Structures are given as structure tokens and as C-alpha cells.
């Protein structure tokens, strides 16, 4: 009898608990006990893991200026796995985060990043999505890596011209293992450019949009480097590139697809997902993608969590 009461009590308590703490959605969703970098690296390296890796394009640019420290912090709070940032070099050889080669669109200044010294860039502030100036400053790569350290993977876009400098910064900040480099060059060219460095970093080949030699490009990387992932974007599902998915998956590499714009993912992009996620993100995943770069990180996380495809 006593046991029965206990069971009943437990059921009642569970029922009330459900009502008191309904699942919270949207920006309020917080990931408690965040997995940490070791888990993220293990997930990245295990192509058989069914969890999808979410990459936030330029950080959480909807709620903070793109490529700002706050945009990275917001991603960490959301539980995003990887943040994509853009690296450029100032006149005095400091690596900063900036997408465009000019600073006109995203800052209060004008002209090329490469014509500005780091000190003078610090007098500027970043603009928000309506172009209005904010109080956020242009971050250095070093500051960004210190924010990311131990919490989130970082994809360094546009870093190809400054590999040595970027690598040194990663070493200095103790973040080499959580950075992902990428590029479109063939294996031979990459090996020549990076040298031994290639074996100390994570490098992800991007399969070019138009390429008659795409198969050769992929198989060369597979036989010589065993990449953890390939970035593959395709404008149509009938595209020859689409066929390469099978080769990539057979090699136990992860498949990264951008859902930013329709032409990168056969029209199954983020804005379509806002209306019908199954017909966009759902199809990309069933077509093999297990890394998605998105401009809607919060919505994608909500969707994946509902499907049991994210922590």
C-alpha cells in the first residue's frame, strides 16, 4: 500500500512539474551543462554520430553585430557547436574579424581594412542590422579565440592568406584544436601552401560549385588526408556534385552544407525552413548533411532538438 502511495505521489509530482516548467522555446532556451569542447571535437570527428553540427554564419548577427564578440557569446549561450568568422589583416599586420574587405557596411569608418592601422580601427564602432552604430568594437582574432576557448568550435573563413599568423595566434591562445580552416584548393596545392602545418590543424576542403574534376578533388583528399568533413554545396539535387555525397559519406567524413541561400542547397535554405523546416533542413539532413551552416541558429537548434538531433 505504501509503495502505491509513493508511486501515486511521484506521478502527481511529475504532472505538476510538467505544468510548472513548460519547455521554453526561442531565445529563452538555455542549454544547461554545456557539452564543452572535448565533446564537440569528439562529435566532429565521429561521422557516424547522428547529431547534427550547427554552424552560425558570422555569429548571432541578428542580435549583435556580425563578427562581434557579443555575436560569438550569444552562440555559446544558445548551444551552437561552431561559429563561422571572417579573418582580415590590418595595415600593421593585426588579424581582426571583418567580412567585407572594406569597413563601410559594418563599421562607422570607410575604406579597406588593409589601409587602416589597428589603433585607428579601435576608434570605430560596429553597426547593427539597421546600419545604426552600436557600442561594440571590431574584435581581434585573438580576442575572439579567447572568448571561444573551451566553449565553441571556430571556423576561420578568409584566413588562407594569413595561415602562419593565424596559427601562431591559435597556439598562443591555446585554441589550435578548436579551429577549423577551409579552402577550395586541391590537395596538392594545400599541402604545398600549408606544409607540415596541415598535420597540426583541422582542414576542411570545399568542393567547388562548378568542377569537372570534383570527384578527383574529393578522392585525393580522402586518400591523402582523411578530412573530418567536406563542404559541399549544390544548386540542384540533379547536380553531379550531389553524387559526391555518397563518396564523402563512405569515407566517414562529415558533410557540411550551407543553408544560407537557395543556390547552395537546392532551394532548401533557411528562409524556407522558417516556413517549413522539414522541407528544407529536414531534406538536407536526409540527403546526408550532418553539418549545417545557418543564418537561423536558434530556429535550427529548436528544430534539431525536437527531432533528437541535437543536445
Amino acid at each position: 500500500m505504501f509503495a502505491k502511495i509513493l508511486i501515486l505521489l511521484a506521478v502527481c509530482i511529475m504532472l505538476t512539474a510538467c505544468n510548472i516548467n513548460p519547455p521554453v522555446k526561442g531565445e529563452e532556451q538555455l542549454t544547461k551543462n554545456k557539452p564543452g569542447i572535448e565533446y564537440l571535437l569528439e562529435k566532429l570527428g565521429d561521422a557516424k554520430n547522428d547529431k547534427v553540427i550547427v554552424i552560425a554564419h558570422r555569429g548571432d548577427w541578428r542580435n549583435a553585430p556580425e563578427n562581434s564578440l557579443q555575436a560569438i557569446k550569444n552562440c555559446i549561450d544558445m548551444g551552437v557547436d561552431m561559429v563561422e568568422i571572417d579573418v582580415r589583416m590590418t595595415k600593421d599586420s593585426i588579424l581582426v574579424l571583418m567580412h567585407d574587405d572594406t569597413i563601410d557596411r559594418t563599421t562607422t569608418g570607410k575604406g579597406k581594412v588593409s589601409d587602416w592601422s589597428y589603433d585607428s580601427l579601435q576608434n570605430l564602432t560596429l553597426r547593427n542590422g539597421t546600419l545604426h552604430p552600436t557600442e561594440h568594437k571590431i574584435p581581434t582574432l585573438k580576442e575572439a579565440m579567447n572568448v571561444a576557448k573551451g566553449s565553441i568550435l571556430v571556423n576561420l573563413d578568409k584566413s588562407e592568406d594569413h595561415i602562419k599568423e593565424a596559427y601562431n595566434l591559435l597556439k598562443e591562445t591555446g585554441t589550435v584544436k578548436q579551429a577549423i580552416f577551409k579552402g577550395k584548393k586541391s590537395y596538392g596545392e594545400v599541402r604545398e601552401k600549408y606544409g607540415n602545418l596541415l598535420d597540426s590543424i583541422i582542414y576542411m576542403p570545399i568542393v567547388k560549385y562548378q568542377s569537372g574534376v570534383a570527384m578527383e578533388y574529393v578522392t585525393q583528399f580522402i586518400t591523402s588526408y582523411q578530412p573530418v568533413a567536406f563542404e559541399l554545396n549544390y544548386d540542384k539535387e540533379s547536380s553531379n556534385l550531389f553524387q559526391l555525397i555518397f563518396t564523402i559519406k563512405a569515407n566517414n567524413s562529415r558533410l557540411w552544407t550551407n543553408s544560407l541561400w537557395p543556390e547552395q542547397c537546392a532551394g532548401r535554405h533557411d528562409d524556407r525552413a522558417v516556413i517549413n523546416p522539414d522541407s528544407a533542413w529536414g531534406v538536407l539532413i536526409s540527403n546526408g548533411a550532418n553539418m549545417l551552416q545557418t543564418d537561423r541558429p536558434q530556429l535550427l537548434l529548436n528544430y534539431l532538438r525536437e527531432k533528437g538531433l541535437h543536445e
Partner: protein
Amino acid sequence: MKKLILIFSIIFISTCQNIKQVKIEEKAARFQTPLEMIEWIKAPTKDYVMTVAHRGDWRNAPENSIKAVSNCVDLGVEIVEIDVRMTKDSALIVMHDLTLERTSTGKGKIADWPLDSLLTLKLKNGAGMKTGHKIPTLKEMMIFVKDKPILLNLDKAWNYLPQTYEILKETGTVQQSIFKGNEPLPKMREKWGSYMDSILYMPMVWPETYSIYNRDSIITPIEYTKGFFENFHPLAFEVIFDKEDSPVLEAVNYLNRKGTAVWINTLWPELCAGHHDEVAIENPDAHWGLLISKGANILQTDRPQLLIKYLKGKKLHQ
């Protein structure tokens, strides 16, 4: 013993139901129609604060797009501020800048483009990337909002008041649209005549250093404010003050005593003595809360979702 089980069960089940009921009540919006919203603005009560989304929900849809307004309806925002501009062939569209570059795939001045060419363009998102959304005409926008529980504040429409009014009449949305402007009542009357009595009008009160005070020989913000109560019924007042001891706050007190709605912009520091959205999201009580205690009935924000969440927590947005 069985009784005990029964009692426990009843207690728990009834608690569950109570909680459910509270939640349903919370979800019911205070205003079901735009007319109810206008009625509240005419006689604002202290138990509620209205929210205005600047250019719509521009974080999640292109600014000044239909989707940006539609998102606001879903969020529970009461007013969306949009910007009205005129094309080469005198059509009215919704866009902020004079030029197309920043928010669309076009280039050059809106005034140099005919409407049919503008409608082939796409809007850009907050990161400058092309989307599938189009530039809305004012008429499309008004048809979209008609009878939905949302009001529009038509910024820059003072440049094209008669043309705008025609569209509102045609679409049956005159009572859903708030006009505003920067000039004293006699000037507005001189320019627009009886239109002024057919529209919902909200004067903007600028800091004492603003050019209108010299230009129109009006000495102070309070005088400018009082001037709107002579044979006229302003819907509300949009007040802008750059510092805590601004003379504009005298006008705020006057309006509060009169029971006229006060609209404060929290977009940028210079509009609200530094109590803007970006500091408010870190410490809402010290900024949004402070402005409400200073007499704000309506807050215009770039953070509608977070502001509504804050107001709900304070039981000011039930």
C-alpha cells in the same frame, strides 16, 4: 489509506488545472482589435505599456517588409513603425533610406525609379544578403494589417499626407494609422488643412536645441506641446530628450497630468538620456523601468521580444 491517496490525487490534479488556467489567461491579449488599441492610447492606463517595433522585426525579417510586420503581430507588439517613400511615378512604397542600396538589390534614389521596376527587386536582410522578400507598396502593407490587432506608425508620411490618406481611406485603415511630424500645429494646419482633423496625429517633441524652436519663434518644448491642445486632439506625443534634466521632461509631466499618452524612443542613447535598448537588455529596470516611471506609456524599441518579456514580468503587458 485509500482516502489519503484520493485526497492527494485531488489536490495535485486541481493544482495542475489551476496552473493551466492561469497560463491560458496570460495568453489572451489585452487588445483584440486595432480600435481597442486606439481607445487605450486616447486614455492610457498605468497598468499597461505599449510597444512599438522600429521598422518591424528587422532582426528576423528584412526591415520594412510585410514579414517584419507579420512577425510583430505574432510577438504581441501593438504598433509597428514603418517608413513611407514616393517613387518616380508617385506611388507610395515602404522603405527607410532615400536610396535603395542598403536594403534592396537596387541602386540609386527611389525617386528615380518607377514602381514596376522597384517591384522586380529583392530586399536584403540585416547582414546585407539578398532575401526572397519584395519591397512592399504602402497599399499592400495596409491591406495586410487591416483589422489585425496591430497599428502602424507612418514615419515620413508627412511629406505625402494627401496621397497617404487616399490609400488609407481606400483600404479602410485610417483608424489603424498614426501620423507624426515636427512642425507646430498652425504650420501643419496651413499645409494640410482639414486633413489634420481626419487623421490620428502625434506631434514629436524635440530637445530645446532643435532647429524648430528658433525657426518658428517657439521658445520652449513645453510651449510647442501646449500649442497642440488649441482646437485639436493630438493622439499622443513622441518625446525625445538627450539628458536627464532636459526641458522636454517638463512637457512629459504636463502630458502625464493631462492624461495624454507619452511615447519614448529607446533606440539610441541620444533619444532617451542614455536609457536605450542596448543597456536595457543588460539591466531593464534601470532603463526601460526608469523611463516607465518617468511617465512613458509607449516605448519604441529595436528589441521588441525582450521588451515584451520584461513588461510581462512586470505585469505591464498582460
